């Protein structure tokens, strides 16, 4: 479990990093927190000829609040997001999700840019980006572009990034007023990748749900939204029958895979159960109660 030999370039600016990537002609890999990349190097699943270290690029680790959005720099560590008062205030579902990501030592190193770029099918951050309708800012030698989270995750471990691309930041719209949230996860152990996880937000208007968002991870190659269930909820107050209907819809709508830890059937079962709980928690929170 030793990596094959590689060259190592420390980039001290975004320009230098982009240039180094462009110079390596597809043979390079960015290293951020290294928490997903280094195991793959050690297993020799990846043998890049060059590692471009972006950790010393100034200005890529930040949480910035503006009127309607929260912008998070790609190098922001999981632990910063977990403990940020700005996140706790405007995106509490994100702060809560972070406590389920790995262990503290890993959260001290792992970055949001790395997690989204890596796109593990059971990771929390891709699900949260999808839930919260975030968008990603991407830089390359040929300029900058913005991609919506909903278009970013293409397949397991596959995202809309080209060889020379660097994710520089993620923009989250703030949660609207009268919005409650829920986050539910089942993992084999504390800190493990999810067998299934569901996050939901419900925005109320009058006594009914004006907007419902439900996102899931661990139940398919990429995170996904439960569009049918969201549509079903819209315009109604939440009650036990509606929760049951959501559970059924979610189960019917996912196509999870089986692995060593859980069968597709169990994951499907979990997706429904967790969606029911997440929606119920969001409903309670939207009414100002504790979940």
């Amino acid at each position, binding site marked *: 479990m030793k990596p094959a030999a590689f060259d190592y370039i420390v980039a001290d600016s975004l320009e230098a990093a982009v240039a180094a990537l462009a110079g390596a002609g597809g043979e390079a890999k960015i290293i951020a927190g290294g928490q997903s990349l280094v195991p793959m190097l050690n297993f020799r699943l990846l043998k890049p000829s060059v590692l471009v270290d972006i950790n010393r690029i100034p200005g890529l680790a930040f949480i910035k609040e503006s009127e309607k959005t929260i912008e998070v720099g790609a190098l922001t560590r999981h632990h910063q997001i977990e403990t940020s008062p700005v996140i706790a205030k405007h995106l509490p579902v994100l702060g809560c999700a972070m406590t389920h990501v790995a262990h503290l030592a890993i959260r001290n190193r792992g970055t949001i840019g790395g997690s989204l770029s890596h796109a593990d099918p059971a990771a929390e951050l891709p699900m949260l980006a999808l839930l919260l309708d975030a968008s990603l800012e991407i830089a390359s030698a040929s300029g900058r572009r913005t991609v919506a989270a909903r278009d970013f995750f293409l397949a397991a471990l596959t995202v809309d990034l080209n060889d020379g691309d660097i994710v520089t930041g993620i923009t989250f719209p703030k949660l609207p007023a009268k919005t409650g949230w829920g986050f539910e996860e089942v993992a084999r*152990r504390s800190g493990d990748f999810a067998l299934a996880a569901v996050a939901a937000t419900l925005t109320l208007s009058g006594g009914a749900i004006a907007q419902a968002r439900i996102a899931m991870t661990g139940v398919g190659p990429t995170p996904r939204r439960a569009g049918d269930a969201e549509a079903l909820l819209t315009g109604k107050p939440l009650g036990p029958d509606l929760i049951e209907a959501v559970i059924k819809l979610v189960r019917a709508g996912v196509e999870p895979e089986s692995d060593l830890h859980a069968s597709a059937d169990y994951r499907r079962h979990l997706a429904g159960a967790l969606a029911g709980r997440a929606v119920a928690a969001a409903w309670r929170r939207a009414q100002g109660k504790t979940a």
Partner: protein
Amino acid sequence: MTEPAEIHTRPKIVGARIKRTEDPRLLTGLGGYVDDKQVPRLLHVAFRRSDHSHARIRAIDCAAARAAPGVVAVFTADDMQSLVKPLRATSRMAGYHATPILPLASGKVRYVGEPVVGVIAESRYLAEDALELIAIDFEPLPVVVDPEEAARPGAPLLHEEAGTNVLIAREFKRGDVDAAIEAAPVRVKGRFRMRRKTAVAIEPRAYLAEHEAGRDAITLHSATQIPGIVRDALAEALDMPGHRLRVVAPDVGGGFGGKGSLYPEEIFVCAAARALARPVKWTSDRMEDLAATSQAFDEIVDAELGLDKEGRALGLRADVIGDVGAYSIYPWTAGLEPVQVVSFLPGPYRIQHYRGRVRAVATSKAPTGPYRGVGRPISTFVMERLMDMAASRIGIDPREIRARNFVRPEEFPYKTGSGIVWDRSGFSECLTAACDKLGYDDLRAKQAKARAAGRWFGIGIASYAELTGIGSRISVAPGMPINTGTETATIRIDSTGAVTASFGIASHGQGLETTLAQVVAEHLGARIEDIRIVQGDSSAVAGSTGTYASRSAVLAGGAATLAAQAVSEKVLVVASHLLEAAAGDLIAGNGRISVAGTDRSVAFREVARAVYSEMGRLPPELRDELAATKTYDPVFGTTTSATHIATLEIDPQTYEVRIGRFVVAEDCGRLINPLIVDGQVHGGVAQGIGAALYEEVVYDDQGQIHTASLVDYVVPSAAEIPPMDVVHLETESPTTLGGFRGMGEGGTIGAPAAVANAIADALSPLGIEINELPITPERLFRLIGAAQAKV
């Protein structure tokens, strides 16, 4: 955590809650592990391992690897042939088939992960680069993965020369069990399955061999539990006398049995260092650890228990198949675990009629070996499940059925149907103490309420007995011809008054440096801080084995007592001369010898100086070295017993299991250090919870291992382990010197059964039996789904 009041009031050093003296070193990074060792001109090994479960090796092409940058040598089995003689784990048991232990696979590979080629290079990185250049032409052979199929006549054979895959078959019986069970008014039975596990010590195995060319001598630094056994085995394999071989186990980061056997890689580094006249090191990575360190707990048990209407057991019969993997491990043999399952199945209960049959079946998987608890986690799981099944059939409480069946105090020593003899131990006392600690009756009342509200809340009891501190009359492994029943201690006071006590044991986390120092301090009157414990070194005493089988506190503690008493006599003779007082009036304590009732005293240091350094202070006949070597042999073994109780709740929608409380009441005789006993129980229970809920080595039907990293081999972390209550009882002093009983393994023995019973109890409204461990959320999902479909 509570303990009986008497422990607080005990004035002595033995029994004191002393913090582990090795911990400051280990916790501040100042320990020295094999891989830390800096040696000039060190070479590094990487092994090309088999990716086939069972295959013939047609040809190996190492030419490109030999030419790769930094590579110094490449060895195959053929290259090793002239350097190493094959070893075999022999046994006196009839019908046993030994298998060869070689540094590299020869002719065939028999499991995925078996070492085939050893590459030696200037760094581990370069060695691994060269691995990719080796071409092995394998001819796949039929895999041998299902132990039941492998046991059938005509099955493909792993070891042709054995003529069968059944490496051992045994039967223990007493009375007429078939008649007893046929006639029993109540019968419960099941097919029980415990899935394969592996030890996962934090420090993986590591071996560094240094060759001293001038003497043709080898020092092997080995992360092993058994330096003495390894030394003796190497003497045979390398054809060298013991004084040119030294095996040192420095700080060792856990073993749990996984470091308790001789390994091919260990022989390899020694042979390679000798052939190349350079030091050679191999450190296992986690992938190798999961694929090629000994595995365990892989049994299928068909068992039936017959009882009378009051729930008294009449007869027990069982057929056990142990899936022992590809080789019969050295020195314990393939019989070690499966035979223990049938030996210990009757547990702490009075059962007149018994029959246990066992077959140890070779399969093309990693070899199995010792793992904390050896066999008894399985036997206890089966027996305790049967007890609960019977209790529910008859309609009595699980606590009550155990109380009715325990061997009673007046019946000790009691011989079980399999021939194990229990000396008096607190079987019923532990059950009572555990129930009291838990508030058992209250909890049952709460459970009734929770159940009425639709909650799945369970309480599980497991009681067991084990034989520990085994002496020379009993083989630790069935039929094994190596004596593991004696332990030698040498205690020496040097010219500065410092005390060095040397042992053959090899502490790898048990805190034996502390507990043995306590024993020595108590009997010698020295201060703990003046005592150094030397252990984990085959050169410390003439003959030794190591630390395993809950033996070290009993055996080394006994040897320490004898040697300390002998040295103390010498010290007192000298002190009596120096103090001009009768030896009988002297008291040794806290590093000084004083005349009782006076303020006159001398320090150990002054005694030592008088003996070794000062001219004319002592008459010549008193200038005897302040040293003694003593050997202790408890001859038989002594019984340790305990009751574990777990409470847990199962989420009715996600099927996650949350353990609430975990209570252990145990009788391990006299406690040397309650803090360390607590720690051993905590760690053992954590491993038992792993066995119950999480850990499973998975091979597919092609013999490929799927749990090759700690993402897939799921070991519980601190977050999954509940707080525990440990109650210590000392029901009766056993015959061992000092009254110690072994207690290093018990946590792992009781916990799987307690958790399994608690889950079955929680799910009893659905009529679900738990017959397979680990009981993962996935397995619960299937069991619950099937039960709900029936309703």
